[in-house]
């Protein structure tokens, strides 16, 4: 199993465990997919009732997220707050020099992302927006998507918007991309032939292996995933799902990531931003 993730989990007994779990998980997944084969296709409605992944976690894990001083992701927020104020790039401008206090106007737009980027005439997620700002307006160096500094700024802005509801941008130019995201959500992929909908629409709340399947909302990202022992983006989490069904993850430049996020945001609209979340 090729490791597609830069930061894998603790290596202890990993090979033996992953082989045995693949056998168990694979069998469970195959049972799941064969039962689905006889079910009818259905159109995506929002899950009812809408439940954040927070609600499917154990009380101990919930407690980690509930208090900032208990939240391992909090350091990324503090780092993001610091970077927000720090002059950067050839322009030696800080985010604050243009945007002022993040708790002002910026706070209101964070829950709208992904939005339409005029310059590239394409949808852009918050991570891409921050990077675009850095490159265009600060003339700062490019950073890879999972770079700690990019995640920190995302975590900071997300935390500033904490408590606001996820609000899909009604911009009509996003509609086509959102529809493609919905197709992705329903598309069966990978060696296990599963779609996002198979697990997260039909079987949320049920158990797969030792875990409870969440509805799969993007409202807590970036978040600290216990399995990663680090903070990570929505993209990283989706990549893990793709690998989980034994599909080839999309390349970084593919619009699929933002398209899927557009749909996920619509699907979970109204759920409160929880950034920085903690998840198993």
């Amino acid at each position: 199993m090729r490791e597609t993730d830069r930061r894998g989990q603790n290596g202890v007994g990993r090979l033996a465990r992953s082989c045995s779990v693949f056998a168990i998980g694979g069998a469970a997944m195959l049972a799941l997919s064969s039962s689905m084969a006889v079910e009818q296709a259905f159109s995506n409605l929002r899950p009812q009732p809408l439940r954040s992944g927070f609600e499917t976690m154990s009380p101990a894990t919930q407690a980690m997220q509930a208090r900032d001083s208990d939240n391992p992701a909090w350091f990324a927020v503090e780092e993001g707050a610091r970077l927000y104020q720090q002059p950067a790039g050839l322009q030696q401008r800080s985010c604050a020099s243009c945007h002022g206090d993040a708790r002002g106007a910026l706070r209101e737009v964070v829950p709208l992302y992904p939005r339409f980027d005029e310059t590239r005439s394409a949808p852009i997620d918050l991570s891409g927006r921050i990077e675009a700002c850095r490159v265009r307006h600060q003339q700062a160096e490019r950073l890879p998507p999972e770079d700690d500094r990019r995640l920190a700024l995302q975590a900071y802005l997300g935390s500033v918007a904490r408590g606001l509801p996820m609000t899909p941008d009604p911009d009509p130019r996003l509609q086509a991309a959102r529809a493609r995201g919905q197709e992705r959500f329903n598309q069966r992929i990978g060696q296990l032939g599963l779609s996002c909908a198979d697990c997260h629409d039909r079987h949320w709340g049920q158990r797969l292996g030792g875990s409870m399947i969440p509805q799969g909302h993007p409202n807590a990202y970036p978040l600290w995933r216990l399995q990663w022992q680090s903070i990570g983006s929505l993209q990283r989490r989706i990549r893990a799902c793709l690998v989980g069904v034994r599909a080839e993850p999309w390349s970084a430049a593919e619009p699929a990531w933002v398209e899927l996020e557009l749909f996920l945001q619509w699907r979970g609209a109204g759920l409160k931003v929880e950034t920085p979340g903690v998840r198993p």
Partner: protein
Amino acid sequence: MSRAVVRVPQQVRAGEVIEITAMVAHPMETGYRTGDDGRIVPRHIVRELQCEFDGQTVFRMTFFPALTANPWVAFPLRAERSGLLTFTWTDDQGRVVIERAELRVS
């Protein structure tokens, strides 16, 4: 290692036993993981946390690789009087993180 956060209860009465929490940013690399290159990622962990109250050691903890990344601990202290709590984390590369907090006792 650049950050730490501690939680010290407010409005503490003299003689009360309080619980203090302390968390430090650290990857706590176990030394058992293999990286992308197939080689073992070297161990890099916090070695010790020491908490002093007005210069006197009131708590010490020895860390081992089993502790989580961004390790967190809760420990007790009998609050006798107001003073300064100093938290010092030292890791296996000799890096030190220091955090301070006031303990206010009425």
